[in-house]
């Protein structure tokens, strides 16, 4: 008993003191949700080392009928918000009155939700505890609620749900992707991973590979910016459906969705090859969409299906850098730089052209543009396994791809 009380006293008294020494350090979290319907969503958080992180991940009940896209996950104070227009559209006013009477969202949960839309939600709160900046690991106190549809009764609007609240403690290494069985077990087929990194630098540096022309263009755009305070955050999505597709999502055309929200911002660019440093007058945002390359030519896919090197090589990255230029009411003008590598070949051969576009991004609708089809090819050998991939005939002609830029005003 004495030991237990001592432990509590330690946490109450000493942790705040120890953490106070680390207040200048930033903690970065990437939460990566990989779903079996070929979708990946990454959520970013940057804050002080003791800052609580809250958010939710929701699975809609009728995925095939859902005009929204499959994953819905966000970081936001309070976690899942039962009045969020992203979740409920028709009952906001009615639920709003209820909400005002119930400060704690878990209270009277069934009354507060439109069960028709939801199959399962996890609403979470993560309290990081970093005792020592030199430590290679971090302790997480995770509180989460899982809201689970049990059944619909008699085909009417009477639904039965189960709600469970959990408290867990976990310790994970920095710079290593970690996943918790105690969370994943609630979402069969989905994997929820966390990647924590730390930095002690005041300046947030974006490292860019030796691509001087692109760096010069980014700096040029940033110098055009008239913005001082950025009271918004941003997201980027790469949406793919069957060719000829339509950006209006249709379940029978859907192929994949890769998205990253709450994009980290940077005010310095570093050229990795030359170590040149460029200070920027405005913060810029970067999404690093990373996802498996899918060979839609089924014959070619069959040819390589047993190749051992395939998993490492068939990895796509789509980097999106957003340079805010000006803001007018709810619309941001920004320069967008897109670098989309379909394969992970670790060479600098030109296969895919970088894109620069100046776009207007509305806070309600975002902005969307179709990615061009490129007639690329790659002929390579790794560990004795030879590949001949022709971009158009093996991939591009099967798909339409759009890049969607989201703006969230704070």
């Amino acid at each position, binding site marked *: 008993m004495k030991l237990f009380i001592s432990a509590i006293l330690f946490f109450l008294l000493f942790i705040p003191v120890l953490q106070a020494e680390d207040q200048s350090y930033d903690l970065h979290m990437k939460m990566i949700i990989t779903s079996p319907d070929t979708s990946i969503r990454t959520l970013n958080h940057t804050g002080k080392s003791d800052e609580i992180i809250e958010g939710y991940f929701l699975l809609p009940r009728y995925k095939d009928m859902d005009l929204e896209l499959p994953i819905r996950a966000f970081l936001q104070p309070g976690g899942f918000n039962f009045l969020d227009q992203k979740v409920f559209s028709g009952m906001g006013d009615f639920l709003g009155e209820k909400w005002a009477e119930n400060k704690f969202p878990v209270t009277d949960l069934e009354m507060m939700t439109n069960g028709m839309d939801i199959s399962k939600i996890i609403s979470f709160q993560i309290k990081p505890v970093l005792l020592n900046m030199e430590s290679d690991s971090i302790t997480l106190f995770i509180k989460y609620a899982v809201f689970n549809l049990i059944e619909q009764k008699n085909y009417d609007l009477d639904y039965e749900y189960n709600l469970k609240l959990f408290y867990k403690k976990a310790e994970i290494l920095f710079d290593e992707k970690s996943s918790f069985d105690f969370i994943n077990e609630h979402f069969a087929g989905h994997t929820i991973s966390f990647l924590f990194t730390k930095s002690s630098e005041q300046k947030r540096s974006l490292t860019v590979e030796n691509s001087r022309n692109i760096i010069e263009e980014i700096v040029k755009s940033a110098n055009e910016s008239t913005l001082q305070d950025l009271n918004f955050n941003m997201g980027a999505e790469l949406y793919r459906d069957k060719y000829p597709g339509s950006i209006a999502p249709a379940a029978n055309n859907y192929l994949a969705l890769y998205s990253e929200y709450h994009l980290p911002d940077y005010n310095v660019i570093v050229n990795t*090859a030359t170590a040149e440093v460029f200070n920027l007058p405005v913060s810029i945002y970067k999404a690093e969409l990373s996802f498996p390359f899918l060979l839609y030519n089924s014959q070619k896919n069959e040819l390589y299906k047993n190749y051992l090197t395939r998993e490492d090589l068939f990895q796509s990255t789509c980097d999106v850098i957003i340079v805010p230029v000006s803001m007018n009411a709810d619309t941001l003008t920004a320069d967008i730089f897109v670098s989309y590598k379909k394969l992970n070949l670790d060479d600098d051969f030109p296969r895919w052209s970088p894109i620069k576009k100046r776009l207007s991004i509305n806070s309600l609708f975002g902005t969307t543009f179709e990615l061009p089809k490129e007639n690329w090819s790659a*002929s390579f050998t790794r560990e004795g396994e030879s590949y001949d991939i022709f971009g158009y005939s093996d991939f591009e002609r099967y798909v339409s791809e759009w890049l969607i830029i989201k703006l969230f005003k704070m």
Partner: protein
Amino acid sequence: MKNNIFTSLLLSIILLSSSYADDKGRISLIFNDTKIDLPVNSVVLRKENNIVLTARAELNNENIKQLISMEISFNSFSIDSVDIYNSFLLEVRNQSNTISSREAFILRFEDNANSGEVSYAKGNKSWNANAISLRFDVSKIDFSNDHLMIQGTFTVAIRSQESDTPLEPIAEIKDGEFEIIL
């Protein structure tokens, strides 16, 4: 201009490779005591206002990464009708397993030489050119034994203001030779 090009598109032949390297043909370059001989990866022959041949050859494994990418525009498909102002590409990349061994020439002209890129990279450094001297000739076009063979020569000198010695070429190729066999 682009509309004219596309509306006058008469012939587009895309020869994509089979699984066997020997069937693809080869592109060879000899320059500055270097010989690069690579299996063709893809070839496109298209008819716009001009006849444009685009060929790409690649060797890419753990130890060596080599690329030759060429685009030659002909007024007619004959040795005296090369029109490098219409469109032109000569891209040569050569790297063993260290970044310091990397060397790349990129000479690309488009839209009647109104746009393009000329640059040179060696190791970690790269330079954009502000002056270029280029001579590019096709000396032989021959179709026999089911193979199309195109041979020629090229000489290049690239100068850059970004260089420590801007009056001296940062890269120079004298008496370079190329051969494309399809």
